[in-house]
């Protein structure tokens, strides 16, 4: 697979390099040489020990280095109106930005939203100032691969002091009749005191094999606030690797919430650097997996400055033969006094075959800190089950009530009420076994408005 990719790069480099900025292409060259040297991560690497990519790499994947999606009338293929939730809705189809009316929009308050490929042409200085600064291609093989092939994705730039009122919703759709390998690249910048909410939905419309390797870089300047939600509802045959890099400065606030409702293979990597005091990072995750689904969340947080705070809570419910992995490292550097860091991973196994590997980890070199970590893997509390049943609830209802309550601790962290209600409903549906990827857009299924889904494959 590695050689195939390197060959492909040689053949297609003109198309791949395209109109990217010179800086981006230099970055690409570095990343490519790293990929040539390191290849795909193997299970010999600690952070991939329980997550084996190799079986997924045997497919003959198809790559598209030209945007065939830009002029797609996406509403005819897929519409996603989240009832009660007014958003700027943007779509990536098979990794490419769908133009709708424009590839790049500049709002009256100066906010720029649109295609990264286009932004590299129109706002090269803005892109160059940030891109690749947080994405560590030396430490993360998949991020190096993404950077080597970087072409398009989402670009958001919020100027100083601007609060973007509506959440920006990015829908990342995979819809292809052939096995596609996609590498979207997103760049999100919140300038000083800016305020931004992003809802990022990953899902597939078909049951075909696909591999998505995405990199998202999020920058929060002084006093900025970024809320980032990922909702993952993908088919059994899809593989998704997300590499999210966060970099925040003083007094800023970043919160990230990853909800994995379905997915064949999912690995979410978060790398977060806090380089300003009084900054606060929150990372939450919920994974509900069954059959032979595999989900891995890896979170590395670097407290590179005194007086910052991070909170992590990842919870999972595993049914059938599902597997989950959590590994997290919180690094508190020697000079990073008055750091507060909490890390917690809790898993419920519903069967004897389900498996969770959890490795929370704190690395603390400062002496005046407040840190905690914890991990549990267990069953539903039998005492609580009996308590509920002794009041007349059947076992099934009691189990569901406890699972919803368990998941609820993560769901209630969602600050947008409409989104929280929707996700809460989805989680309940998922736990009752009523949600499959056939429900299409996960944010859709409780819509009170009539919605049509006429997927016309001939248009693709």
């Amino acid at each position, binding site marked *: 697979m590695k050689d195939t990719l390197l060959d492909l790069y040689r053949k297609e480099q003109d198309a791949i390099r395209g109109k990217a900025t010179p800086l981006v292409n230099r970055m690409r060259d570095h990343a490519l040489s790293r990929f040539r040297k390191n290849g795909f991560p193997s299970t010999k690497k600690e952070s991939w020990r329980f997550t084996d990519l190799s079986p997924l790499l045997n497919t003959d994947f198809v790559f598209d280095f030209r945007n065939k999606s830009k002029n797609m009338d996406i509403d005819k293929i897929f519409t996603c109106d989240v009832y009660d939730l007014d958003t700027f809705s943007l779509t990536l189809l098979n990794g490419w930005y769908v133009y709708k009316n424009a590839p790049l929009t500049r709002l009256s308050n100066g906010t720029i939203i649109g295609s990264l490929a286009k932004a590299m042409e129109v706002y090269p200085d803005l892109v160059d100032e940030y891109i690749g600064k947080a994405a560590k291609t030396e430490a993360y093989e998949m991020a190096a691969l993404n950077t080597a092939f970087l072409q398009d994705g989402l670009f958001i730039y919020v100027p100083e002091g601007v609060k973007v009122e509506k959440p920006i919703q990015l829908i990342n759709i995979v819809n292809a009749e052939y096995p596609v390998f996609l590498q979207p690249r997103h760049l999100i910048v919140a300038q000083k005191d800016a305020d931004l909410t992003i809802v990022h939905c990953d899902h597939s419309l078909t049951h075909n094999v696909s591999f998505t390797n995405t990199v998202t870089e999020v920058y929060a300047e002084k006093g900025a606030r970024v809320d980032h939600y990922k909702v993952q509802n993908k088919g059994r045959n899809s593989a998704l690797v997300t590499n999210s890099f966060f970099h925040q400065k003083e007094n800023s606030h970043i919160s990230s919430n990853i909800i994995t409702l379905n997915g064949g293979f999912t690995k979410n990597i978060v790398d977060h650097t806090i380089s300003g005091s009084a900054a606060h990072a929150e990372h939450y995750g919920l994974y509900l997996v069954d059959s032979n689904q595999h989900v891995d969340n890896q979170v590395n947080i670097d407290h590179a400055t005194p007086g910052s705070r991070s909170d992590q809570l990842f919870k999972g419910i595993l049914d059938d033969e599902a597997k989950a992995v959590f590994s997290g490292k919180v690094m508190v550097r020697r000079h990073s006094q008055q750091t507060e860091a909490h890390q917690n991973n809790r898993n419920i196994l519903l069967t004897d075959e389900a498996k969770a590997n959890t490795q929370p980890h704190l690395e603390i070199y400062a002496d005046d800190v407040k840190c905690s970590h914890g991990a549990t893997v267990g069953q539903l509390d039998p005492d609580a089950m009996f308590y*509920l049943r002794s009041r007349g609830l059947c076992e099934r209802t009691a189990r569901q009530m406890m699972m919803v309550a368990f998941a609820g601790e993560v769901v209630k962290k969602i600050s947008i009420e409409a989104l929280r209600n929707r996700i809460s409903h989805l989680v309940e549906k998922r736990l009752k076994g009523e949600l499959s990827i056939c429900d299409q857009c996960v944010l859709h299924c409780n819509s009170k408005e009539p919605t049509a889904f006429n997927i016309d494959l001939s248009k693709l």
Partner: protein
Amino acid sequence: MLSIKNLTVSIKGKTIIRGLNLEVKEGEVHAIMGPNGSGKSTLASVIAGRDNYEVEEGEVLYNGQNLLELPAETRAREGIFLGFQYPVEIPGVSIANFMRTALNEKRKYLGLEPLTGAEFLKLMEEKKKMVDIHSKLTNRSVNEGFSGGEKKKNEIFQMALLEPRLAILDETDSGLDIDALKVVAGGVNKLRRNDNATVVITHYQRLLDYIVPDHVHVLYEGYIIKSGGKELALELEEKGYEWIKKETVA
């Protein structure tokens, strides 16, 4: 209503209850007293349907049905209620949602229409007043962060909503101050009717000043070694369990 004959129960191979007999009729209040480890809580678990014990011998009939064959939830829907010695904390499950689900599952079992949200809220307010429970308690997660007294009040509140025919109150007085004890006992007394029965399990006589039993039984090492009227509780309080033990041996 409840008829226990020659009941022998073990937990992990250890016999806890040995050949116990007990008859409870409608309208009666029974007190089962005994020192720690005498089998009181095991008896409560057997009646409510916890599955951590083995019934070696004997039978438990409830209104003529073999209770031991029924799962815990069916027993509850048939009108059995266990007030827990240690009510379980269940974070994230609200009392209101829990109780509405419980009540509606019971109504469905009995062939009744489920209560609507509004009907349930009205009923809940009524019962709250009845057992003197503060409104904010029911908005919280089940027992989460409750004080000992709040937990026990919450048990009585659930009992008031579910209107059981047979209530087993396991050490409901443990960990209560006198004011909470009065509230809990007052709730139980208000719920007393001619067609229901209550079995109060307690270590101390104190609770029986407020919930006056028709019958008192002393459980010791898995047997009921003495039964009597309410005066037996007072005698026990005065002379201690040693007195009964000696008397039985004699």
